[in-house]
Every structure is written in structure tokens, then in C-alpha cells.
């Protein structure tokens, strides 16, 4: 099955999706091709597995509904990432509104989540790094995750986040400094 997924390019998958009889097959291939990448992208934002699972489902449900009319002005990969990012950020914001938590408290809650998470299997240093990441503004954290962990090119990130390469480089540079300072202090 993995080989079958890799055989199709994004353009081919989109074309296949638009054939009524093969829509479900194409969608299944898209899900298998991108589920892991999108899962980890969302997981690094939300940290909790169950929340990530929910948002990943939401992401693909949106894709299912919108792919028919996808204009292909961006690549499928970029488009999927954008939807996933928006879903994760919307979820964080709704959490804040629902519990009337200011930004700082949400991040504190997330820090507690990692400490008590049975699915966290990092060492003490990695825990400190994750806590350091939580001190960053949400969007800066996303930039850092995409550059540091995913090793994405700035041009790719610019397309996904709809921000300039220059702004992303500055954001990442500052994020690195903040994180290194945090780790030194803790």
C-alpha cells in the first residue's frame, strides 16, 4: 500500500479525486500519503494526542469537502499544511475563549500536559526544550517547529504560512535566541 501511495504525484491524486468512481480511492491515498506529516505538524502545536487526532480528522474532513474545488494555485502539500495549521490555531483560540484563559494560562496548561502525558517519551532536556517552545507566541512556535524539526525550506514555509521569507528568517532567529536563553536559565 505504501508503494502505491508513492507512485501517485499530487497532481495525479487530485485528478483521480475528480473522477466520481475513484474519489474515495484517491482520498484514501491522499490520507495515507500525508497523515503522518500532518499529524506531527499538529501535534507539535497542540502537544496532546487526542486533540491532535480530532484536529487531524477535522483537517481531512475539510479537505474531503473542498478538494473538488481546489484551484491548485498552491501545491496540494502546501494547501493541506495550511488547513492543518489553521485548524490547530483555531482549536487553541477556542480553548482560550471557552475557558476564558489568557494566552499565558493556555501555555501553562500545555506545559502541564507534556509533563503528565503518557505519550511523551523525551528526556529532561527535551522536556525543557518543549517548555521553552511554549514561551514563544503561537505563530513563532510554528515557524520554529517547521524549520528546526521539519527542516523545511523558508520558501516552502512562506507559501504555507503566507508570510515573507525575510519575516520567517527573523522570526526563527529570534525564536532560537529565546529558547537558548530559556534553557540556559532553567
Amino acid at each position, binding site marked *: 500500500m505504501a508503494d502505491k501511495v508513492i507512485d501517485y504525484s499530487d497532481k495525479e491524486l487530485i485528478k483521480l479525486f475528480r473522477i466520481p468512481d475513484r474519489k*474515495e480511492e484517491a482520498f*484514501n491515498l491522499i*490520507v*495515507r500519503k500525508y*497523515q*503522518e506529516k500532518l*499529524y*506531527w505538524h499538529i*501535534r*507539535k502545536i497542540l*502537544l496532546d*494526542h487526542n486533540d491532535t*487526532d480530532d484536529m*487531524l*480528522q477535522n483537517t*481531512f*474532513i475539510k479537505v*474531503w469537502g473542498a478538494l473538488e474545488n481546489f484551484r491548485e494555485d498552491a501545491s496540494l502539500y502546501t494547501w493541506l499544511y495550511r488547513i492543518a495549521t489553521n485548524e490547530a490555531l483555531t482549536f487553541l483560540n477556542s480553548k482560550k475563549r471557552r475557558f476564558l484563559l489568557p494566552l499565558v494560562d493556555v501555555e501553562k496548561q500545555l506545559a502541564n500536559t507534556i509533563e503528565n*502525558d503518557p*505519550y*511523551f*517519551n*523525551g*528526556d529532561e*532536556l*527535551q*522536556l*525543557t*526544550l*518543549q517548555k521553552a517552545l511554549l514561551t514563544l507566541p503561537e505563530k513563532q512556535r510554528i515557524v520554529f517547529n517547521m524549520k*528546526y*524539526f521539519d527542516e523545511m525550506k523558508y520558501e516552502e514555509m512562506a507559501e504555507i504560512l503566507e508570510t515573507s521569507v525575510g519575516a520567517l528568517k527573523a522570526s526563527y532567529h529570534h525564536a*532560537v535566541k529565546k*529558547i*537558548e536563553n530559556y*534553557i*540556559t*536559565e*532553567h
Partner: protein
Amino acid sequence: MKKEKNTGIKLKDFNKEIPFKVPEDYFNRFPTKLAEAIRDHDHVPASVKFLSTWKPYAAAAILIVVAVLSGTFIANRNSSETDPGLYSEISDLVENELYSINEQTILEMSEMKEQNLVSDSIMSSDEVIHYLMNEDIENELMNEL
């Protein structure tokens, strides 16, 4: 043992591996779970989705309108018939009770009802409306005082 400070650590010194794991077999099961979710999502008509989203707000709006109208009705009706002092006291009492019903309370009640946390012994909206429109409410309240 005293925890040593992480002096001068650079990010390049870190293990870049993501320190999270997933439940076993998660990615194998995910496409099937997603297909079911999409089936459920597609089977709910748009009108039902709309109604289920807006039902609590509609109920809250109706109750608030009824409360305001009832309060106004009672105040206008009784202005020439009762002792102004007593009228003022009753009016304040009714007003305080009615206006203490806020949208958030109604939404919470609605959610609790859906979760079966609220018994059916609480008045239905028809009973509430009947209570508020009760022409004898003033006499009943006077007797209580």
C-alpha cells in the same frame, strides 16, 4: 542532588527527534476511523447542522424576549391599581428574577439537559411562558410577602 544549570547550551546540541509517541497502530487505523467520521458528517443535513448549532441561542432569545415583554406588561397593567410602594417592590422582585436569567445560564441548562444532567421535572418552556404571563402573578407574590 542539586540540578545543574544548562549553561551555554545551543540548539544544535539537541537531539532533534520528536519526543512524542502515538498509540500503537494509530496510523493504520486512522483512515478507517476518518472514513466513518466523514460518512457521519455527510449524513447530517445542512439544515439539521444549522438548527443544532443555533437551537440553544434561539431558546435563550425567546425566553429573554418573553421575560422583557412580561415585565413590561405587568408593570403597565398594575400602575393604576396598586399601592405604588408595593407595586414598586413587586416590580423589582419580578424584574430581578426575570433579568437574572441570562443567556449563559440558559445555554448551560440546555447543555445539561442534552447530557441528561437536568431532570424533566424542571419547567418546560411552555410552563415558563405560562408562569410569566400569569395574570395572578402579582397576587401570588403579594400573598408570599
